[in-house]
């Protein structure tokens, strides 16, 4: 019993860390897809970019870790504004297929560029000393970095939810997600809103990618390999919702970890089978708005 509780605690903890990273990366996708109706399959590119910014800053320039995280957020967010202005905005009314194709094209380009610039090998993540090693919580040892990941993600999430629930910007986002035409007719500048929200979502993806660099390795095929997981979080959680993907990410993180621990022979199948089952039960996602 002691052993069972102990392993359950470990599974819950590690699943939560993984799930939180997934959420921080994917929440931006949920908001932009719900807000702009834009199928952005290149979201993983922003996460990967954040990871590269972090590892380059840490390894090549010796930047302190907190600053490197901030850089990941800022650089990716800023770059995404440029992309949005010049490329994405042309396709807002184009329909799903062109958007899917365009973003897949972006992924191809990003993967090739990453390989050319950084090489195909994974990037080492030199964590600062105060985040390595183990910490003792309630008598068990947990890796310090994952504790940090959980705590920091919780902070980001709290800030995000506060922002969406309490600020004017948040109210505008919620209104536009609910009914874009109405929101425009009462004077909300949806173009600027899109740009800002897209930048925030992409910046968060970059931050998530950087934060999770120790867990989800940064290398050129990152956007392809993990695309399915990000899409699963968003589609199972529900487009445009904040809480939905959070629940979905935790479910996936903990469920995947639990399955691999107790039923390792089904390890790979769990996520896909669960996704199919959940989507068939609730096609709009667990907390989705549109039917």
């Amino acid at each position: 019993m002691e052993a069972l509780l102990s392993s359950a605690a470990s599974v819950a903890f590690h699943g939560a860390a993984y799930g939180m990273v997934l959420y921080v990366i994917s929440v931006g996708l949920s908001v932009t897809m719900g807000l702009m109706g834009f199928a952005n399959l290149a979201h993983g590119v922003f996460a990967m970019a954040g990871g590269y910014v972090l590892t380059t800053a840490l390894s090549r320039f010796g930047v302190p870790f907190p600053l490197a995280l901030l850089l990941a957020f800022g650089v990716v967010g800023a770059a995404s504004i440029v992309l949005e202005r010049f490329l994405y905005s042309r396709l807002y009314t184009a329909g799903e297929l062109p958007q899917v194709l365009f973003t897949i094209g972006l992924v191809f380009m990003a993967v090739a560029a990453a390989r050319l610039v950084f090489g195909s090998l994974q990037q080492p993540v030199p964590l600062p000393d105060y985040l390595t090693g183990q910490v003792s919580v309630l008598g068990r040892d947990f890796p310090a970095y994952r504790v940090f990941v959980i705590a920091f993600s919780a902070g980001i999430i709290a800030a995000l939810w506060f922002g969406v629930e309490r600020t004017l910007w948040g109210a505008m986002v919620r209104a536009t997600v609910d009914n874009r035409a109405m929101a425009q007719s009462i004077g909300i500048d949806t173009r600027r809103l899109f740009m800002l929200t897209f930048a925030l979502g992409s910046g968060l993806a970059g931050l998530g990618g950087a934060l999770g660099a120790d867990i989800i390795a940064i290398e050129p095929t990152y956007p392809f390999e993990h695309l399915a997981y990000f899409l699963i979080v968003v589609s199972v959680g529900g487009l445009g919702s904040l809480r939905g993907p959070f629940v979905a990410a935790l479910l996936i993180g903990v469920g995947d970890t639990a399955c691999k621990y107790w039923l390792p022979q089904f390890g790979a199948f769990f996520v896909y089978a669960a996704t199919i089952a959940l989507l068939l039960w609730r096609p709009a996602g667990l907390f989705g708005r549109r039917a």
Partner: protein
Amino acid sequence: MSRGGSYAADHRVRAIEWLPWVAAIAAFFLLPDYLPLGARVLTYILFALSLDLILGYAGIITLGHSAFFGLGAYVAGILSARFGVADPMVQLAASALAGALLGISTGAVILRTQGLTQLMLTLAVGALCLEIANRATSITGGADGLSGVTVAPILGQFRFDLFGKTAYLWCLAVLFAGWFLARRLIYSPFGVALTGTRENSARMHAIGAPVYWRQVIVYTFSAAMAGVAGALLTQTSQFVGLNVLGFEPSGELLVMLILGGVGRIYGAFVGPLVFLVAQDFLSKQFPEYWYFGIGLLLVIVVLFAHGGLLGIGDALLARRRR
């Protein structure tokens, strides 16, 4: 005009439609050294045609079409390597049937959903198929691949030779049959209704057309066709590897079709031809730039040239006519 392909009114075969077949036969005689590449192009044309049916004509976006291709490839391979069935027609029939079964079972479920959910489900099905093939090593050979695949000579006479002659002609014949059937489908009342579904699904519902069942039927037909294309690949390589499944072949096929032009049968002919020939010549010179170039091409086509190469061709012709 629509955002996809053209509206098919006249079903008679226009003279220009014989051009691809004439070109293919000419290539057989004039380019004997390139027949293996030619067989590959023909196989992918069939595969692209199957995708065009659902993407271009029915408007269903999928990232998992390789599931049917891969299933067809493995069924043909397993029949031969594990059960000793080497007859090429039987292999094709079995792959078509397998593709159709998977198509109807997944299609019936997936087509009840829309948008991101639908896309996600096609991805998930594709990923599951890859994982199953990787696991079932005793049947599929897993990551090492399925060897020992043999194909009996066509009609008892024509062996699959080293020069790729038989393979080329066999693929051409099968493609011809597939093209014929697809064309019949598109130009029939069923096909017209399908185009209606793509253009304005709500309207079709409103006039009482059975949108869902039409989509399931074309999805099944497309899956069977993709399965046959997969079987062709197995027959020409006499081997099956895991590379027939997963996101990569689905993604590449999408690029090929978009390049040629969606929703017009011959986009599926032009796209794979240009893509595969370019890949053969260019990727050796500049391997990393090739990958980048494909992405760039896709972005450019989407932003500036919706109809792909054939769309550009149309625009040029229209300008000349003025």
